[in-house]
């Protein structure tokens, strides 16, 4: 990536360097050389690149350098109360009631009192708080941390590595089939403006199977930087879901680093309705032959919300299949962005990669920017992309109205149907219904 010379360092840019300077002695693992070296290298990377801006192609539509005008102090976990009622309120009943092994992080702090650590252990999953694990990282964590599909050109990721505090490290043992989803719930309730840097490291060993759901909820001016590293071993299968409902003032910067072994299966779904600015990045790399990945999602935005989905799928080996399918609904002055890049390395023959993104614009001022990119260096591949953006079809609307459905309700039904095309791809019925209800809730429809 070519980086233009920067004229000056913005206040926010400097703010992160100061934040690190002040916090580094107290960050988890400060006395462990492995961890402190990792952090030092990462802040160096960030310092060299600075905050991403629109002249960097991958950030063309999301000028973070311009949008971030100040940096909030690091969040402080104060052991806030968070009972079942709070969770239901925060997540919506449908999502809160999903049958799952819960891991609840309140203000970045993994709360044993709210989490089902014993259940996970019995199910064959090792789960530890990342803050604790960093104090004396075990061999398996050292092998994974900042090493799953690693990148040194992403300043947002580098900031996370430099400042990571909360989050969990999970290891699904070889051959273990986890019987229920693992639900990582990050709640940052009402409070002062804050920054949070959480990091999850998830290893699904060979032949294992698991479903991982990440929920994000906040009710304050939160600058969230969340990273999940996921290594899916040979013949392992992982379903990976994100439900993003951060507060209307929040910045939600999320990066998934995914690496798939031979014959692995990966199904991802990202559901996004929250945050003033959301950047959902997925870097996925095929590391073994015969693997398949499907990345789907739905985003709903209104007002002045900005929702960016940026995917980079690298086919480095032959015989892998990737699918991307996203649907967005944009109202008011909202802006939606979809960037899907597929790179097929020389020799990655028989690659099959397709992407599709569509947006429904509900106002004259909503905007959808879609940028598919294919970089293909092999000759025997099938790759394709498609993109649509349009308005509600008047003919369909009239059909529903002629059946007695009032206009507002008919419109909402059509919007729900549009998003439904993405949500229907979720296999798990409970989750599918929960997200359908969440979409209906956003639309102001009763979910019955």
């Amino acid at each position, binding site marked *: 990536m070519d980086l233009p010379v920067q004229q000056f360092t913005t206040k926010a840019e400097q703010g992160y360097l100061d934040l690190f300077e002040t916090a580094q002695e107290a960050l988890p693992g400060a006395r462990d050389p492995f961890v402190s070296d990792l952090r030092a290298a990462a802040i160096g990377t960030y310092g060299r690149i600075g905050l991403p801006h629109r002249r960097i192609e991958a950030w063309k539509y999301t000028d973070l350098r311009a949008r971030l005008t100040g940096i909030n102090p690091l969040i402080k976990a104060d052991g806030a109360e968070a009972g079942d009622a709070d969770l239901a309120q925060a997540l919506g009943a449908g999502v809160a009631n999903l049958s799952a092994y819960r891991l609840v992080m309140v203000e970045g702090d993994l709360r044993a009192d709210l989490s089902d650590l014993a259940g996970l252990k019995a199910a064959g999953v090792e789960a530890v708080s990342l803050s604790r694990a960093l104090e004396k990282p075990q061999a398996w964590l050292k092998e994974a941390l900042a090493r799953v599909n690693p990148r040194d050109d992403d300043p947002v990721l580098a900031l996370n590595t430099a400042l990571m505090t909360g989050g969990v490290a999970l290891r699904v043992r070889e051959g273990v089939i986890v019987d229920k989803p693992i639900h990582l719930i990050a709640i940052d309730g009402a409070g002062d403006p804050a920054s949070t840097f959480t990091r999850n490291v998830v290893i699904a060993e060979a032949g294992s199977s698991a479903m991982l759901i990440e929920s994000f909820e906040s009710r304050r001016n939160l600058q969230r930087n969340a990273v999940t590293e996921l290594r899916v071993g040979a013949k392992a299968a992982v379903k990976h879901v994100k439900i993003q409902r951060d507060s209307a003032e929040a910045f939600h910067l999320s990066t998934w680093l995914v690496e798939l072994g031979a014959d692995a299966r990966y199904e991802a779904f990202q559901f996004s309705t929250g945050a003033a600015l959301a950047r959902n990045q997925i870097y996925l790399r095929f590391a073994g032959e015969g693997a398949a990945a499907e990345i789907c999602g739905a985003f709903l935005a209104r007002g002045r919300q900005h929702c960016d989905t940026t995917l980079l799928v690298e086919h480095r080996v032959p015989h892998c299949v990737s699918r991307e399918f996203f649907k967005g609904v944009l109202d008011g002055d909202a802006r939606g962005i979809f960037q899907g890049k597929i790179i097929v390395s020389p020799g990655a023959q028989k690659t099959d990669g397709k992407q599709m993104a569509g947006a429904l614009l509900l106002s004259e001022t909503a905007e959808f920017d879609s940028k598919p990119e294919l970089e293909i260096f092999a000759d025997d591949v099938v790759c394709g992309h498609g993109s649509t953006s349009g308005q509600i079809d*008047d*003919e*369909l609307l*009239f*059909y*529903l*109205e*002629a*059946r*007695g*459905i*009032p*206009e507002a*309700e*008919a419109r909402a*039904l*059509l919007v*729900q*149907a*549009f*998003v*439904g*095309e993405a949500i*229907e791809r979720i296999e798990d019925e409970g989750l599918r219904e929960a997200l359908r209800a969440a979409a209906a809730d956003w639309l102001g429809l009763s979910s019955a």
Partner: protein
Amino acid sequence: MLEIKNLHVNVDGREILNGLDLTLPQGEIHAIMGPNGSGKSTLAYVLAGKDDYHVTAGSIAWNGEDLLGMEPSERAAKGVFLAFQYPMEIPGVATMTFLRTAVNAVRKARGEPELSTPDFLRFVREKAQALRIDPEMLKRPLNVGFSGGEKKRNEILQMALLEPTLCVLDETDSGLDIDALRVVAEGVNALRTPDRAMLVITHYQRLLTYIVPDRVHVLSEGRVARSGGPELALELEESGYAEFGEAAA
């Protein structure tokens, strides 16, 4: 009673209906026939309240109430039902969800209680069975992948569920084979009651063998050119629409 007086309708700057008068009493079925472009489908859409069909003069009253001032959904609540010539496909909306939303919207507007889920399911199953509709079909997205016959039967199912008092059938026979036509006609005839009026729009006499009308009106150039009893349809079958401005096929 449906009373249409001196109706003038403009679509995309063209006058399609041009002083149409029609009276349809309750309990009767009237057929609207006529050559292509005579304004048959326009009449159907105007009754249902489609946008972009501009009424420049005249009136439509249903049971003494002015229909033209009402939104399409209000008209449906007042008992107006249009069976579409080309029913819409809506991926992402399950047929059952659509049916329940429509039935409950209409019931609510009519001041009736919404149906409970079991009551609704029973109601749908009973009506679907009469129309020989496979219950599996109702789980699929609305009209998506339905055959022409399935779509038309689905229209009649909606008609049965919404219990309208003014049924407008726009070319319901188009694209149907004889068996499907019979099933659809049986469904329509089952809804023939003294408090219901029906307007059956068709290009061909064929449908009127199964749905026997009380009166037949022939449209030409946007108005009723001739009216008569059921024998008029047979006469047209013989002579074609030549005298109404269409070259004989």
